[in-house]
């Protein structure tokens, strides 16, 4: 099995699916000749040509709006938004149009597509190359939200997403785009959407995370910062629909919960996870639910590492809950 990083895994999934399904087209800024600013679409233009690998004008609303029209007609567009921070000009097309098409037409029209976009901090990107907008989309009925943390899941989840019948916001953790490497089977396989993965079994504290945070949490473990405890670490992989069973089963077992994400704490996805547990597993809780998240400020430049949840902050929260 070849060893890939996440970019290579994404690229491999796109190639495979475009070979398998002639309806799949890729569009976005600089995705064609250049192969994307992160190279995730490199080689596609050469293999599939300008009609299926499309360099667009600089307009996210145009990319998503036209992708919707393509999908309505029967193509399977996979638009790329160059950075998640630039997705907001397309917000209306995503939340008012894409998310509602099937519902508002009584099932007559659907626009299945996968919106790929790199997200998250850790690359010294400041305000506009670091944001984590997952909660906006998880709050919008009609969208699925998928976030891989490693190459294997990136390929398998992307293939599932491209074969599904629903719009998917596919957020790629760019901090670990190249850093996260792993064996990836050649050829076809899928990872189901809606299933979380227990990356470390444990009995004492449940830690919920996704994307690059999975690596930060594991770093806390590998650094021995959590050695006095026995955390169970879960990579959610899909935020919507959430794998409620896996989450609740773990919390019922450990009775303690820490949630880690990069997005600002207030109304972040961690709030939903905490609320879910406070509704469905309250009596199992032996300690307050702690959220280790980005602070409620815009994403800074110089102080990025103060802003981002660090292994130390996560370990501290684990210790606090465990010792509560």
């Amino acid at each position, binding site marked *: 099995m070849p060893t890939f990083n996440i970019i290579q895994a994404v690229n491999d999934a796109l190639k495979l699916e475009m070979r398998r399904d002639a309806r799949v087209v890729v569009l976005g800024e600089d995705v064609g000749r250049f192969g994307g600013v992160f190279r995730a679409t490199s080689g596609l233009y050469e293999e599939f040509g300008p009609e299926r690998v499309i360099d667009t*004008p600089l307009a996210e609303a145009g990319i998503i*709006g036209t992708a919707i029209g393509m999908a309505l007609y029967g193509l399977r567009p996979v638009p790329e938004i160059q950075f998640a921070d630039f997705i907001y000009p397309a917000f209306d097309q995503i939340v008012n149009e894409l998310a509602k098409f099937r519902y508002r*037409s*009584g099932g007559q029209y659907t626009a299945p597509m996968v919106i790929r976009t790199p997200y998250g901090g850790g690359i010294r990107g400041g305000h506009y190359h670091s944001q984590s907008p997952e909660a906006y989309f998880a709050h919008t009925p009609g969208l699925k939200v998928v976030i891989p943390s490693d190459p294997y899941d990136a390929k398998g989840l992307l293939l599932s997403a491209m074969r599904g019948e629903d719009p998917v916001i596919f957020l790629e953790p760019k901090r670990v785009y190249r850093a996260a490497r792993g064996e990836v089977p050649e050829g076809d396989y899928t990872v189901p959407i809606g299933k979380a993965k227990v990356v470390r079994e444990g009995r004492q504290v449940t830690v919920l995370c996704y994307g690059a945070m999975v690596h930060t949490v594991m770093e806390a473990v590998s650094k021995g910062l959590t050695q006095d405890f026995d955390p169970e670490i879960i990579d959610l992989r899909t935020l919507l629909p959430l794998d*409620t069973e896996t989450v609740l089963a773990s919390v019922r077992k450990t009775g303690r919960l820490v949630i880690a994400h990069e997005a600002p704490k207030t109304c972040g996805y961690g709030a939903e996870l905490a609320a879910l547990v406070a509704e469905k597993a309250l009596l199992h809780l032996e300690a307050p639910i702690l959220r280790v998240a980005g602070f409620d400020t815009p994403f800074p430049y110089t102080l990025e590492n103060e802003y981002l949840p660090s292994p130390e902050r996560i370990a501290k929260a684990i210790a606090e809950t465990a010792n509560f």
Partner: protein
Amino acid sequence: MVLKNQGPTDEPPYWLLEEDGRVRQGGQPPELNDEAALRLYRNMLQVRLVDERMMKLQRQGRLGFYMESVGEEAVHMAVHALRSSDWVFPSYREPGALFYRGYTLQRYVNQLLGNAEDSIKGRQMPVHHSASDLNIVSISSPVGTQIPQAVGMAWAARIAGKDDLALTFFGEGTTSTGDFHVGMNFAGVFKAPCIFVCRNNKWAISTPATVQTAARSFAAKALAYGFPGVRVDGNDLLAMLAVMEDAVARARAGDGPTLIEAVTYRLHGHSSSDDPGGYRHPDEAKEWSRRDPIERWKRHLMVRGCWSEAIETRYREEITEELQKALTHGESVPPPAAATLFDDVFATLPPHLAEQRQDLLAQPRPVHPLGPHSPHGH
């Protein structure tokens, strides 16, 4: 001074029909046989009669909300130039385009009432139709969103090697949106076979067209995107058809998009929630009502010699009767079942929605009446 302003003036819109219904000297009318001419007439008439009746219903509180097209019916007939395999991306004010493509009055009424037989399952406000069997795309409220979508569909057809094209309708106010710009721009760059019909009915709710742009015309905006824009008298059906024929020919030939500014007038309020008395002088509407597109077409039919009192009465009776039937049935149909609330969010019901569905079905069905009537501003 090195700066100069060039480009089209607001030259009078293209027209073909004299007020008396004759084709103007030297005008080149498109081919059209009497049967087609009558069919167009009947469709416009239907829009007018349906609007009248629905407004009455709305006033009686039997309908939550309604939007009329009085005076703009000829623009709707732009779809005449299309094949049935072509797609239409309407706004909320082109019911004639739906009727012309075979959207029945029963279906129309069911949507307005949002009953259990509504083909969109009572999901949207009145006038937000959808008919995939007729290649009429689900109508949205946020204006302009359909424009880039239409471009995408047209572009997809080209990619798929089909010669289907897209027609999208929108009002002049909608040209101010970002979606208009990105849609038009993508269409120009990719030569998408998409026809943009801008209904310049002079008003966007209470906002006059002069507040929407300082450009000399809305057609002039096409210059920013590198394809032709044309102004046409939207109350002159023959001119509409001529311009559409050209636009369709261009699109099919792979020559790309066309912007058509159809100059017309919104004779009545923006919607059943609106009273134009608050912002415009009644004389304006009086003036324009003299240019009624349906009357003008009727005079043309007379010139052709294919109109008669008998035909007129028959059409009116047929339409009124079909409408009455549709209403009687439509109002007898119950609302959709509560459980349907959770269908079509996704292709299949995810666990959290299944749970919410259970919760709802466990509740007593709410007894309190529906709230006050529908919003202004739409």
